């Protein structure tokens, strides 16, 4: 999809990505051509120029045999980088093996390996490297092995964590039930699904290995003369650092630069992989002209021509209009992909970056939303989401969070705010509000948390409550209680409620009026008590017919709607429902029907429904 590749491109255009990329590319070139170009110079002994400092002929000075140090630094690149690469590969191979073993070993052995990995991760890496290097013998081989061993535990733990999450997935459970052997589960399901993050880690480890190896050589544990890598050059130059600092700074700079390059590149790779949908700023598209007519004075929420679009031509909400009167409960119903939740987000100013929101009018409680301060908006509008934990801070006590609202929005004193919080919690029928106010959100059940969120909305004096699937995650009996509570809140405060749900039965039961959305547009609006008998739009009718209830004839197949709702980027010029509609004609595919009045308080957008 275009949005995806755009997002990835934007990651690659960030300064750190460019710097990382350039450095790594330079290092690669250096590794290839360095010894070819400067190899001879680096080895040329010059008795006349021993232990010199910086000069025009030797910018970084010379060593104890009069060899040019700049040339030696440039030549050492290949050796340093190859050693780092080998060390990383050894570490990765060891680590992945250790990390994957518990998935195939019997339980006791698996636990032993896991424990060992945990212990190794806690052990200082450099000590591990030095120990291994000393045991394996001085020299490049020992150092590479040492760094490899030091890298391995991190890889092992990453592999284990990733593998454990895949091993707990439903598809692995399904494979086990089908009798797929564990080794096959590992190679077919687990390894392919954890490969990507492991490869990313490889790039980042390369930088670390480079630094580590330089450190080993610097300590005299690594590369031994006559071979030389950056660390060795640093070691040799270090003795002269007070006399000719440049002889040590040259190799040090090379190590640092390479390390930074690999780390930046690794970061970029990780970010490009993590980022799949967010992207660049969209050039602001002009919205519809502001509405000419007078705003509806009776409305507490008036939305006119609301459009939400994302870069890449995806427009999930298209010219939606909606009006709520005080004390009215309006249900916004639609299936996944209809744009109903983004509509709520747009009204609350919560559309995620890089979405763009335009409208001809958006008024809340008699004022343009654009003119309201965040504080005024926060007081006049309360939002309740499907997951109450999205609105509650898990680290804070429930009562304190509610009180915070009163302190911030109404400037209440701490004690007053706290009293009001307990009062509101009691108001939403949270049993024993005093006690629950002092608890953390995780100590409450799902239903209680949702009550607490509603109570939070009631800390102010909301004129409009927007509830987005507030009962979807709850059990039916709890759902029933929350619906009743929402109705009470409306009756009592006179606020309007916009209730968003995929469940047309819930909407029909709770709401006064129902607005049906399909592919970003309103296709029908009608009083809730007319849903069962008076729905006119083919989509609304099909949706109701699809819903099994307690009287559905069990001997007949259930109705359904063939096909799927078009993706927001794929909505054509005609009626969006046409590909799934039994009544569709040629006109439906080419021309879009407008919402027109169809009987009392009912509007329908369909060519085949006669007014």
């Amino acid at each position, binding site marked *: 999809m275009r949005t995806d590749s755009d997002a990835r491109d934007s990651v690659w255009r960030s300064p750190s990505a460019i710097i990382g990329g350039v450095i790594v590319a330079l290092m690669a070139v250096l590794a290839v051509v360095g010894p070819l170009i400067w190899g001879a110079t680096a080895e040329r002994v010059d008795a006349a120029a021993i232990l010199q400092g910086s000069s025009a002929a030797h910018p970084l000075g010379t060593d104890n045999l009069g060899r040019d140090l700049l040339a030696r630094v440039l030549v050492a690149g290949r050796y340093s980088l190859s050693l780092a690469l080998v060390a990383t590969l050894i570490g990765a191979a060891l680590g992945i093996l250790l990390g994957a073993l518990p998935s195939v070993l019997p339980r006791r052995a698996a636990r032993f390996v896991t424990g060992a990995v945990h212990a190794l991760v806690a052990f200082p890496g450099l000590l591990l490297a030095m120990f291994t290097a000393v045991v394996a013998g001085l020299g490049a081989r020992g150092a590479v092995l040492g760094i490899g061993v030091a890298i391995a535990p991190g890889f092992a733990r990453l592999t284990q964590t990733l593998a454990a999450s895949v091993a707990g*997935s*439903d*598809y692995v*459970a*399904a*494979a*086990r*039930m*089908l*009798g*797929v052997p564990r080794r096959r589960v590992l190679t*077919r*399901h687990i390894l*392919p*699904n954890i490969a990507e993050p492991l490869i990313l880690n490889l790039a980042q480890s390369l930088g670390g290995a480079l630094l580590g190896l330089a450190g080993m050589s610097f300590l005299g544990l690594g590369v031994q003369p006559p071979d030389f890598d950056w660390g060795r050059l640093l070691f040799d130059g270090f003795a002269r650092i007070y006399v000719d600092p440049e002889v040590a700074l040259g190799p040090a700079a090379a190590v640092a630069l390479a390390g930074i390059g690999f780390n930046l590149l690794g970061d970029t790779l990780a970010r490009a992989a993590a980022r799949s949908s967010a992207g660049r700023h969209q050039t602001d598209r002009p919205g519809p002209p502001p509405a000419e007519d007078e705003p509806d004075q009776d409305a507490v929420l008036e939305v006119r021509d609301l459009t939400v679009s994302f870069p890449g031509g995806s427009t999930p909400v298209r010219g939606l209009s909606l009006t709520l009167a005080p004390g009215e409960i309006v249900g916004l119903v639609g*299936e*996944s992909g209809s744009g109903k939740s983004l509509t709520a987000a747009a009204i609350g100013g919560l559309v995620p970056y890089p979405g763009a929101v335009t409208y001809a009018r958006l008024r809340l409680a008699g004022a343009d939303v654009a003119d309201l301060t965040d504080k005024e908006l926060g007081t006049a509008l309360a939002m309740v989401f499907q997951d109450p934990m999205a609105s509650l801070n898990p680290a804070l006590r429930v009562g304190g969070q509610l009180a915070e609202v009163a302190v911030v929005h109404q400037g209440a004193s701490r004690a007053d705010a706290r009293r009001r919080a307990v009062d509101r919690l009691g108001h939403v029928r949270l049993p024993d509000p005093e006690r629950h106010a002092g608890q953390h959100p995780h100590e409450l059940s*799902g239903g209680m948390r949702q009550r607490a969120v509603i109570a939070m909305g009631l800390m102010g004096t909301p004129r409009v409550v927007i509830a987005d699937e507030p009962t979807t995650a709850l*059990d*039916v*009996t*709890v*759902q*029933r209680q929350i619906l009743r509570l929402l109705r009470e809140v409306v009756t009592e405060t006179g606020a309007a409620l916009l209730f968003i749900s*995929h*469940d*047309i*039965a*819930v909407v*029909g*039961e709770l709401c006064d009026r129902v607005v049906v959305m399909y592919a970003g547009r309103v296709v029908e609006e009608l009083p*809730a*008590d*007319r*849903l*069962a*008998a*008076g729905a006119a739009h083919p989509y609304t009718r*099909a*949706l*109701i017919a*699809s*819903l*099994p*209830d*307690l009287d*559905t004839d*069990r001997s007949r*197949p*259930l*109705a*359904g*709607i*063939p096909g*799927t*709702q078009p993706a927001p980027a794929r909505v054509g010029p005609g009626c969006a429902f046409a590909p799934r509609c039994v009544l569709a004609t040629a006109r439906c595919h080419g021309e879009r029907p407008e919402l027109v009045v169809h009987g009392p308080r009912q509007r329908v957008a369909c060519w085949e429904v006669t007014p």
Partner: protein
Amino acid sequence: MRIERLTVRYGGFTAVDDVTLDLPDGHVVGLVGESGSGKSSLARAVSGLVPYTGRVVGAPRVQMVFQDPYASLDPRMTVGETVGEGIAKRRRATEVPRLLGLVHLPAELAGRYPRELSGGQRQRVAIARALGGDPGLLVADEITGSLDVSVQGAVLNLVRGLRDELGLSMLFISHNLAVVRYVADTIAVMHHGRVVEHGPAEQVVGEPAHDYTRALLEAVPRLRG
């Protein structure tokens, strides 16, 4: 088939408490209950995914279909590979198209990846994979829970069709009583780890014997008018 005195404990918490349940051959037994009632733990125990005490008698080759078809298919395997997972290599070429046909999916879908399918199609793939294990009992755990209403009907029709055509025995779990009533021959109601009522579907819905069943029925949202 029969579940006998089955108990599932997680540490000190008893999720399923001494449940005995008949699963007649070729029948769909519906299991309803709210979150924490133990219905999913029972399903996982019967499927051998969690340890339990007690016995599951005469239920060979239990296969399970999960709630979320986005999580239950390996994103890196094609539909054909997924459906063929439990089938011997030499029979795969003929079996995969047959299984896809059983769940009313075109055989061409075998080369596609899960991300190219809709939710309803994915759930059909998951059902086809389970059928590939030639199940003596199919456990369906909230299989329409994450589907849109407009595609839910087709999946439920498929479930009923499979019972009629293949004589498949099924344990069908859902929190939605209307859905369970539509597909199940008998309904068992679970509450706090126990089965509080079990009887023919129409009877449980029409003349509930237990208070909890009545409360559940009352809470089912209905269209007015």
